[in-house]
């Protein structure tokens, strides 16, 4: 039996200052630690923005996103279009991509939806028809690998009525979508116009983010 003696050197990356772009400065690291987690202030303001001001501020397509998680609301403005996919952004660079009003991707919200195949559900919902469909949603896991969630969904048309938000006023029909996987399930709903546009909806984003209400203010 002998005494033991060894040395262990642990270098800890602490924050500093300088011109080295690889160095986070102290403040940003501290802010990073403070903001870590799913703080919805990241996505906009917690107070509902004034719709009139938003509409006056731009002529382009506008939507309002309200997160069930904590009630935070943010206005989003269209910044790009790629075929049927339209990408909307908050003022502080968080984006949501929609395919005919159905959410197919988010960026910068945490636990982002990386991509989705929603064609089956979308076709039924836009046609305001009942039926079943498969929905695929992809996320990154902690190792940066893509994890695919597969849901079996049942779409049911419901009541008709008027939907009026911002510059949008249209006769719509409510359509519900109940989706279920082995691990989870959610109930989404959509207000769909006769020409198959989703003008208001309640959709599921991600395991961490949960559901969000999306209101189309200008198409």
């Amino acid at each position, binding site marked *: 039996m002998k005494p033991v003696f060894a040395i262990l050197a642990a270098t800890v990356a602490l924050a500093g200052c300088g011109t080295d772009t690889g160095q986070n400065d102290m403040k940003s690291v501290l802010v990073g630690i403070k903001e870590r987690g799913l703080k919805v202030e990241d996505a906009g303001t917690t107070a509902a923005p004034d719709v009139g001001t938003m509409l006056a501020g731009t002529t382009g397509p506008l939507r309002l996103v309200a997160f069930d998680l904590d009630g935070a609301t943010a206005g989003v403005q269209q910044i790009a279009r790629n075929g049927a996919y339209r990408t909307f952004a908050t003022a502080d660079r968080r984006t949501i991509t929609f395919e005919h009003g159905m959410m197919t991707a988010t960026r910068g919200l945490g636990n982002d939806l990386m991509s989705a195949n929603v064609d089956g559900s979308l076709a039924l919902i836009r046609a305001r028809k009942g039926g079943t469909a498969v929905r695929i949603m992809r996320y990154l896991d902690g190792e940066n690998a893509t994890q695919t969630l597969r849901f079996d969904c049942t779409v049911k048309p419901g009541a008709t009525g008027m939907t009026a938000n911002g510059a949008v006023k249209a006769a719509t029909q409510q359509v519900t979508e109940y989706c279920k996987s082995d691990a989870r399930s959610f109930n989404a709903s959509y207000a769909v116009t006769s020409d198959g546009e989703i003008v208001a909806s309640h959709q599921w984003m991600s395991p*961490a983010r949960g559901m969000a209400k999306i209101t189309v203010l200008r198409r």
Partner: protein
Amino acid sequence: MNKQDKGRTGRTRCLATTALTLLCYAPAQAQDIPSFNTYGGPGLIDMPTAHMPPDATLSTSFSYSGGTTRSALSFQILPRLSGTFRYSAIDGLIPPTYTHSTYYDRSFDLRYQLLTETDMRPAVTIGLQDFIGTGLYGGEYIVASKTIGNRLSVTGGLGWGRLGSYNAIGSIGTRPAEVLGQGGVPTYDRWFRGDVAPFAGLSYKVTDQLTFKAEYSSDAYVTEAGYGLVNRESPWNFGLDYRLKGGTQLSLYSMHGNEIGAMVTLHTNPRNATLPGGSETAPVPVAVRSAGSAADLGWTTDPAARSGAASTLSTALKKEGLTYEGLDLTPRKATLRMVNNRYIADAQAIGRAARVMSRTMPASVEQFVIIPVVNGVAGAAITFNRRDLERLENAPADELLARTGFSDGYAITPKPDAGVYPRFNWSLSPYFKVSFFDPDSPVRGSTGLRLQGQFYLQPNLVLSGSIGKQLAGNQDTVTAAVPSALPKVRTDYARYNREGDPAIEHLTLTHFGRPGQNIYSRVSAGYLEEMYAGVSGELLWKPVDSRLALGAELNYVKQRDFDQMFGLQSYDVVMGHVSAYYDFGNGFHGQLDVGRYLAGDYGATVSLDREFANGWRVGAYATVTDVPFDDFGEGSFDKGVRVTVPLEWAIGRPSKKTNNINIRSLTRDGGAQLDLQDRLYEKVRETHRPDLAKEWGRVWR
């Protein structure tokens, strides 16, 4: 660095990422983690169970009972294989010739689950406890555990060695008592030999948080009782576990019928990120060209159009945290030279650069070639067809990977634009160092300030220096002289610590080069590390698609003065290695170095790491040289465990920084390696296909 953050949703907490105390824990799989015992592995109170935590679980535990403190770090290496490193302090156990009042011991365990648990059969695990070294805790076991219903788990097993020391029911051969070599060698001559004794126990979940445990121990605590430290009145031990929300286990237990003990165990898992996918802002979306616009080549005759495109690209890349260095623009192809200092996943940097190019390059450009440059030299050239980016932006990332080209950026990399070089970077930052295992003071730390700078005379020629000044700490009070039969190439570390304040940590001029296709080079000269100055040259062969790399390094170095200023001592040596690196492709990475070490000894180092695509790494290495075990001294040969924790994983926003924790068995003079700043391999592999493919999910993030 002990910042605690509860976060609003309380999803993950991280107390600190220093040293043995990896106090970070991600709770996602907390409910699957079995109870841990005082040795820091899955078990009851002192006895092991056959349960295994989820793959890649990294656990830190501290236990105290009757003068014995055990700190342990356990890692689930594979779903059925786990290892533990433990550092124990036993107050009052003072062997002859020992000069301290507390006995310190390091030990390693390995466990393998032979059978997983099913409805019908128990889990069965075979384990080696303290299987390298002096064997104070040496014991082997085979144990079965079965869960009955949701709350009860029963365990029974047979133990040898220490675990066969009470009420043996038989004996298999004889168990030798003498230590092999100078300790530190696998004690294979003892395994499963000598007396064998049964042990048993159960655990019952009273509530989801509270578990009651009881065991019949087969460990007689012979050594401790011999020193009068333990009075073992009973083989029955009892315990209570309280599990916090994050998975942290708090335990109280009674042992030997007369001792009370306490323990805390923290768990983390590199596979569970703080915030999967990160919280950084969105990338710019791909801009899709309008139909027919690609035919417009009018811009090619306008010189202002080219420089305009380059400057818009540069500005837009900057917003993504990327550094533009040069652009080669032809009517159908744009080749970008850039530096990524922001994203630990290079795939993310490349994906962001590609989207920026889609918004800034003239419509006729059909192909984007992105060449990330590290240390002024090109690695891989990543080629996208612009139409693929437009078409696959909303598709799964692997569809883009299948359409992405990887080739060597050698000879096709644009030159940096005028004005980019020379460049100067500097930083002033606090540092924090911890060292363990000095019997005079088992935990030592120091904190101070480090001023460092890099002056890039040319893109690939850099003058780099770093000065450290200690502000507080007790590392400089290490006085223990380490006996050595070899030239004292490393064992003077205490003197270097004491006298080098402030210290020139390094001051070097380094040239990086690309002598040919697939070949990388480095030549460094100056004060290479805190103890050595000299010249160092390295060559690396690493094709872009290859999981194999081969390297060679040759150094001539002289020992530096203890004050770590400019002076040199008389000891010098020519040393170096040939190296093979291999990415096994299943998350494991191996390295073999064969050559001459600092003391002039010849030998080889074998390293094996488990790597995670998010930058985490947990590994071990061993160096054996021609130095006889007796001359090497305690430990017999150099070996250690190392953990790398990426800062991004902990804070959930982009950073290339990592925390490195090296638990070296003992700092001795045999098998000692030069501690160079800029070895080529780790940087070169970052942009090559095998590494990019692992993190490719990030390309659209």
